[in-house]
């Protein structure tokens, strides 16, 4: 079963004359464990596509199915259920400022059903070790560097044990060396979990980590490689 199937997807914002098509007839498949990069100029609809796959928006036309769940016509509750199985990494780290690194990661692990508090906490600690932050567990985001924050965000996304990881320009706020490290870490950990990754990026220096490259322009896929 494919991680993501997008079939003839179109999406538009606005009503009537203000209606503006953002995505047009997009189709692609992401296999389990595959790392796919999505690039393209600003405003070409990358983020909209990501939010549709991430079950954050209602699908208007065409079909999106994520981890075997069809999202066409899925209601609020159903999309929330699907989101539990998807890890998300944002452009800003979006960590909870009032929580320590460990607690932030545990917010991800807390989504796992049927685990005791202790087991979930151990899970969180293990992920922080995996991203190399075992010495910074008790720090709040304010006291962490940009790269460390993004690594906490990766640990949080993976702690919920997702089968699909969506990342929106995870390197945007980082310098090139740190960005490279973070992306490589992300790919390695996703591989180990056989978790598929769809990453939106502008950054040309990280394209080589991908198994496959999708290029978008004006709401269409340029090459269906």
């Amino acid at each position, binding site marked *: 079963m494919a991680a993501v199937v997008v079939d003839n997807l179109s999406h538009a914002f606005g009503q009537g004359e203000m209606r503006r098509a953002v995505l047009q007839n997009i189709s692609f498949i992401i296999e389990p464990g595959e790392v796919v990069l999505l690039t393209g100029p600003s405003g070409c609809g990358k*983020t909209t596509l*990501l*939010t549709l796959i*991430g079950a*954050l*928006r209602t699908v208007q036309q065409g079909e999106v199915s994520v981890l075997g769940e069809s999202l066409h016509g899925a209601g*609020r509750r159903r999309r*929330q*259920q*699907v*989101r*539990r*199985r*998807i890890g*998300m990494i*944002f*452009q*800003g780290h*979006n*960590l*909870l*400022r*009032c*929580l320590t690194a460990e*607690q932030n990661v*545990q*917010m*991800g692990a*807390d*989504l796992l059903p*049927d*685990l*005791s*508090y*202790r087991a979930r906490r151990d899970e969180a600690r293990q992920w922080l070790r995996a991203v190399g932050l075992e010495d910074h567990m008790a720090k*709040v985001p304010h006291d962490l560097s940009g790269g460390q924050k993004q690594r906490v965000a990766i640990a*949080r996304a993976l702690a*919920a044990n997702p089968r699909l990881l969506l990342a*929106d320009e995870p390197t945007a706020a980082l310098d090139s060396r740190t960005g490279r490290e973070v992306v490589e870490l992300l790919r390695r950990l996703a591989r180990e979990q056989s978790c598929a990754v769809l990453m939106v990026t502008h950054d040309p220096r990280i394209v080589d980590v991908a198994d496959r490259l999708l290029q978008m322009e004006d709401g269409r896929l340029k090459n269906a490689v």
Partner: protein
Amino acid sequence: MNRFWRGRRIPLSWLLLTRQPVRLLVALAGISFAGILMFMQLGFRDGLFDASVTAHRLFDADVVLISPRSASSVSMEAFPRRRLVQTLADPDVDGVTPVHWGLMLWRNPETRRNRSILALGFNPDDPFFVDPSLAEKTDALKQKGRILFDQLSRPEFGPIADWYRDGRVVETEIAGNRVRVAGLVSLGTSFGADGNLLTSTETFLDLMPQKPPGAIEVGLVRLKPGADPEQVVSRLRQRLPKDVSVLTKQGFIDFEQNYWKSSTSIGFIFTLGAAMGFVVGCVIVYQVLYTDVSDHLPEYATLMAMGYRLSHLLGVVVREGFYLAAMGYVPAYMAGQGLYWFVRDATKLPVGMDLSRALTVLVMILVMCMLSSFLAMRRLIDADPAEIF
């Protein structure tokens, strides 16, 4: 137990509050202030109503006769004394005490200014007070022109109690007649009376010669042990003409309190004051929670994007409101205790913390915080997880 640990989560609401200590302190100060305001207003209200009947409570009576035209302790009307004598025909009645009751002008012996004082006149041979230490003192009234002065009266009546305790002969004038203080009692002030004095029927009528001797304002009726006051009251009501009202002692107390509660704006004013405290508290808590939710909106949206349910996040806000209520109540309660003590000391009003008021304010604060958190939630419902990419 297992299930409990399984359900355990990171205490997000608690951390959201405590990791911003300044905002938390402001919120708690606001809630405590609202709570103190409510404690004060309700305390004054109850204290004033309570004070209006401190003397009433002391009377040795099971059943009380008053005139149906009487409206309150400051406007007692007279009724024929023989109605009180008629009650003796009832088999359950043990004895009666006729009481004269009226306001007199007391001259402050120091400043020579006149001020209205509540005077009670009764026969010193009749039982009048339940408390034996008070009853003992009434013997001194057997001499003409003697009075007992309430030492809890306001200081405007003069330093009577101090002078008396110093062993001086304290004399002053009431309506042109000389009276001498023969002892001190503790009754307490109320709305109507800034001070009280007790005297004998004889002296009372000398001081107020215009009062007809065959008429009294209050009749105290004592029942035999084991008699049911309610039954006696209903029997007496049937037997006696309509020119007299028959009340139980509690009914007499209620009669006085009801006057101040319903016929004056005092109850309304203080209840309104408490309501203002409630509204002020609501605004403060709402403001704090609303800013808190707004500040953390991207974080809440992130949690929603991660797959947390909206209801879970609403629960976080509700719990924040609950913690604020619990933490704000404690200082409000303690400050309330302190202020009651201060008010008792300064005004001699019987203001104290009682369980029902402590619970009332607790419930008000809880409702206040819950209401505010529900209002603040509307902001959270606007959080669109799609907007955070």
